[in-house]
């Protein structure tokens, strides 16, 4: 039986998930349009969305395939762009350590920026792992909209001259910023977020955005933990 508090947290997750559905669908559609314009077949574009399931790497692959770059370069760039997922996986590991190995293996394939953001926020509200919440975040709010929108983008993309004029490009940063607000529940969280953002931008400009995002994710918490004051009270998952 599900208690009323858990039900309330799940309702909040679904409400937050609507924003992520919009984000995933918007980006999936733009990806489908770009892939179709670059000569990807529906099977090619959808295979990327199902098998890779990584937005930034898929966008980069479209540009690089269209530019005639080598597969080796595309694969190396993909590893580089998706390296940030190790942070998500590490942050979720304490919550999910007791789940069966096979279940965690499937969860890992579906681990994206959006799935991480929604599920870690939900787990913290609930105070423990709620696998229903993870599956909703990863599949219901992200995987399904992303893949359906990819198909739609390939099919109808040619009829839309410039999807960016509808403001779809801002959906992803707005969604990530909004979800960060939900996690910024104390002084250290706010410092971690601000330092992560500043560090991320600085290193992105100096080197590469993929490195910048990882550096922000690693460095923000270090600075926040170095703050003087009461040590953080951590509720064990």
């Amino acid at each position: 039986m599900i208690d009323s508090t858990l039900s309330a947290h799940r309702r909040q997750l679904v409400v937050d998930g609507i924003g992520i559905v919009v984000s995933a669908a918007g980006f999936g559609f733009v990806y489908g349009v770009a892939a179709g314009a670059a000569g990807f077949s529906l099977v090619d574009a959808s295979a990327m969305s199902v098998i890779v399931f990584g937005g930034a790497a898929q966008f980069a692959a479209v540009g690089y395939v269209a530019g005639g770059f080598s597969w080796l370069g595309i694969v190396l760039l993909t590893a580089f762009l998706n390296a940030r997922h190790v942070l998500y996986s590490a942050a979720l590991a304490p919550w999910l350590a007791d789940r069966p190995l096979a279940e965690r293996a499937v969860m890992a394939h579906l681990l994206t920026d959006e799935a991480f953001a929604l599920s870690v926020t939900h787990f913290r509200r609930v105070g423990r792992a709620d696998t229903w919440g993870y599956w909703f975040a990863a599949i219901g709010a992200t995987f399904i909209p992303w893949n359906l929108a990819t198909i739609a983008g390939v099919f109808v993309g040619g009829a839309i001259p410039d999807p960016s004029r509808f403001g779809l490009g801002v959906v992803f940063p707005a969604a990530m910023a909004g979800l960060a607000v939900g996690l910024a529940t104390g002084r250290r969280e706010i410092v971690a977020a601000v330092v992560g953002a500043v560090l991320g931008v600085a290193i992105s400009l100096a080197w590469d955005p993929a490195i910048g995002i990882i550096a922000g994710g690693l460095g923000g918490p270090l600075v926040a933990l170095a703050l003087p004051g009461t040590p953080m009270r951590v509720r064990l998952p």
Partner: protein
Amino acid sequence: MSLVALAFLMALVTYPSRALPLLLVRSARFPAPLLAYLRLVGPAVLAALAAVNTVVLVETAADGRRIASFHVGVEWIAVLVCVALVAWRKNLFLGIAAAVLIVALARAGGVA
């Protein structure tokens, strides 16, 4: 060769970063300092993602190099409005809708 094969290769290099910590951890007992650190990874990495995707523009040069540059645009206002709305109303969808509306109106009006 079909791009499906490329997709498999891309997945092959993506999966380890997604899976290794999740699959290697066998116990829920983590040292408190590590838990405190991991708790802060979420806000830090999401804020970094938001900031980088708002203020850094990435273009690909003819030789394949990725070139990052500082970008100032209406997206800044849109994301800040989203943050304020989410903090105030606790409604992510509302924040995203407002952000999209701001950018779409700015583009329609020729401002951005």
